[in-house]
């Protein structure tokens, strides 16, 4: 018998706040995290704006470990901070020997430290602190998160580019559904590095101004960093008073069109959304809000828009891209946006798509995102999209949990 999956905790850190409270305050005041570069050492300062978490590694180490001297990659630190908040808000449930999974999505691991090491290493193969390389792998941050919780169950890391953390949510749900785990902390983390900034820059998809997702005149994306985690629990173990929302739908597909670009008709996006809505056992008209992938690139927004028109036909639900606030946090984005989706259902709010001005002509000029924070909304179902390089596309459906 398939188990229902409840969300009992949320944790978030991004350029708009180190926890959920700060994040929501900044959303209410339309205060986006895009800014000129303060922390990353790069020649692209001040030409490229980024959404940095506004703390140094020492400050993050204090928050994660209570110790500014603690050496860890920025990725691990951000991950621990958000995962701890998620776990705490879930009421720090019993880990239950091996019955709690820790699944995190990530794209560049400890590249922030690798870059520093490599500059020395390229000069002299014996130079640099070799221990740095032990923090390079993507799994490292996941293991530090598991250790910070004391978890000894299944620990795994997914790297499917920008859909990584949506896929961890799907994995956690399926493990619990089949009774293989009682609960899982799922989501993802990525920190800003020269590697990613230069990679996206050379692909010419970075906006040198503040990004405008789903706008006719969009110029690209702003890169961000952060972490977002949610706690999933089986209906057998979730305490009713802890339940925030329910995860009812998920699907993963592949666009199989191009290594980095989305297909013009959004095949992968369409299949992911369709699959997630079907798993939820509902029809598309039941979706009240879509948290779109909406990176702000020419290619993504057009292809995602077409896919949405195919799914919803003329009746496009309310939608917005929260990446105008947080930037594109890559491997963390699905986790961060899952937190946004859960909170939206709980509080009945819909987030504004900042800086939107003109609808995209090729989408018939009719795809207009929400531009103001909407409150007192009666929301039952939210669809969240995460698409990435390599054609990876995933969608999730969250359902409001109402006592009645």
């Amino acid at each position, binding site marked *: 018998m398939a188990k229902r999956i409840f969300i009992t905790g949320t944790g978030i850190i991004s350029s708009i706040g180190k926890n959920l409270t700060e994040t929501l305050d900044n959303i209410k005041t339309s205060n986006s995290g895009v800014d000129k570069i303060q922390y990353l050492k790069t*020649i692209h300062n001040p030409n490229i704006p980024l959404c940095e978490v506004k703390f140094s590694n020492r400050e993050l180490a204090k928050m994660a470990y209570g110790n500014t001297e603690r050496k860890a990659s920025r990725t691990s630190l951000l991950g621990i901070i958000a995962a701890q908040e998620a776990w705490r808000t879930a009421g720090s449930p019993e880990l239950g020997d091996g019955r709690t999974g820790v699944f995190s999505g990530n794209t560049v691991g400890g590249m922030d430290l690798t870059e520093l090491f490599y500059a020395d290493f390229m000069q002299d193969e014996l130079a640099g602190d070799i221990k740095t*390389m032990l923090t390079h792998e993507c*799994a490292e941050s996941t293991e530090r998160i598991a250790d910070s919780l004391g978890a000894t169950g299944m620990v795994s890391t997914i*790297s499917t580019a920008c859909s990584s953390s949506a896929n961890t949510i799907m994995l956690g749900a399926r493990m619990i559904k089949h009774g293989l785990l009682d609960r899982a902390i799922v989501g993802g983390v990525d920190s800003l590095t020269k590697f990613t900034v*230069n990679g996206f820059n050379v692909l010419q998809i970075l906006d040198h101004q503040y990004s405008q997702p789903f706008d006719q005149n969009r110029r690209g994306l702003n890169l961000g960093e952060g972490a977002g985690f949610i706690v999933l629990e089986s209906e057998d173990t979730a305490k009713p008073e802890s339940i925030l929302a329910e995860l009812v739908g998920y699907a993963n597909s592949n666009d199989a069109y191009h290594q980095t670009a989305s297909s013009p008709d959004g*095949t992968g996006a369409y299949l992911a959304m369709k699959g997630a809505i079907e798993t939820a056992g509902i029809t598309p008209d039941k979706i009240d809000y879509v948290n779109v992938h909406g990176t702000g690139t020419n290619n993504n927004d057009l292809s995602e828009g077409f896919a949405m028109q195919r799914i919803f036909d003329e009746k496009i639900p309310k939608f917005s891209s929260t990446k105008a606030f947080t930037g594109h946090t890559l491997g963390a984005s699905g986790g961060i946006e899952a937190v946004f989706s859960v909170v939206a259902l709980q509080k009945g709010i819909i987030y504004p798509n900042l800086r939107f001005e003109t609808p995209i002509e090729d989408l018939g000029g009719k795809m207009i995102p929400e531009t103001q924070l909407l409150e007192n909304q009666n929301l039952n179902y939210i669809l969240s999209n995460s698409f990435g*390089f*390599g054609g*990876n596309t995933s969608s999730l459906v969250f359902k409001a949990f109402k006592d009645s």
Partner: protein
Amino acid sequence: MYINGIGNISPQNTYDQTMGEGLVASENAFFVCQEPQYKQFIQKKLLRRMSRAVRMGLAVAHKALEEAKNPAIDGIITGTAWGCVKDTEKFLETIIENNEQYLTPTAFVQSTHNTVAGQIALMHHNNCYNMTYVQGAVSFESALIDASLLFMDGKAKNVLVAGIDEQTDRLKILLKRLSCAQGNHPMGEGAACFVLSDQNKENSYAKITAVNMLYRPKDKDIVKNSILREIKNAGLELADIDVVMSGNTDASLEQNLIPDAQVVAYKKLCGEYPTSTAFAMAVGAKVIHGDANTKIALGINNANPENILIYNQHQNINHSIIILSKV
């Protein structure tokens, strides 16, 4: 889950045959893969831009599919700890050398860990479920568990599962400095891919009757009990395990736990690397299927092993348990 097709690129001659007769030893504490002629199934212009990780991944997928008679595939799942190392190095080095200027995107776009799974989907025009696990020594096990979930969900008939890790010259230097590569404990690399199916076919090699992983088990008893539980869940008795393929330098735990089984060390053929259990599963399945060369290469005495336990652990952090059984 039945194994209906295998593609295996390893330091041994395992791609076009089950196992070459002359076995290759490591050199200077490293094993290097024997690679096939790629141009038979990858276009030349594409091939030129592909790193070894991607080439090997595509080649083993091709072989596994061919062996399984090209069934429709419902999932593509890869495991890789190191990812596309070569392209990662290439992009990183150019950033440093050129001070973040005059870059080209090719290495960057091919550096992401999901490149192999994405390229398999692209090459086979397949929109199906697509996933990449990057969990150190249990990346491949994560992929296997995901495949088993697809079958449980009733979402799949055939799933492609691969474990891939590539060495590079730079990585070798780093591994030496980390004291990982030693004469008696060489490092290796490899790519192995499987068509897993819920259907027992005449060409099935073996079935996977258990897969599990442990993270930082508190003591040895937890490991032993987990192995015993997996044997039981596979519907077997302890005495049914004929061979243990161990990835561990000290194999006393598995030998003491299952004294009647022969314990063999598979890494003497492929070296140490995070997805080495994919190699172990490939050769283990061939042994169960009755391949004499592979049995000799591994030093297995049992005439007809029916159940093989693959047990590997990395620094007592990640433990992996896989059981293969005769169909």
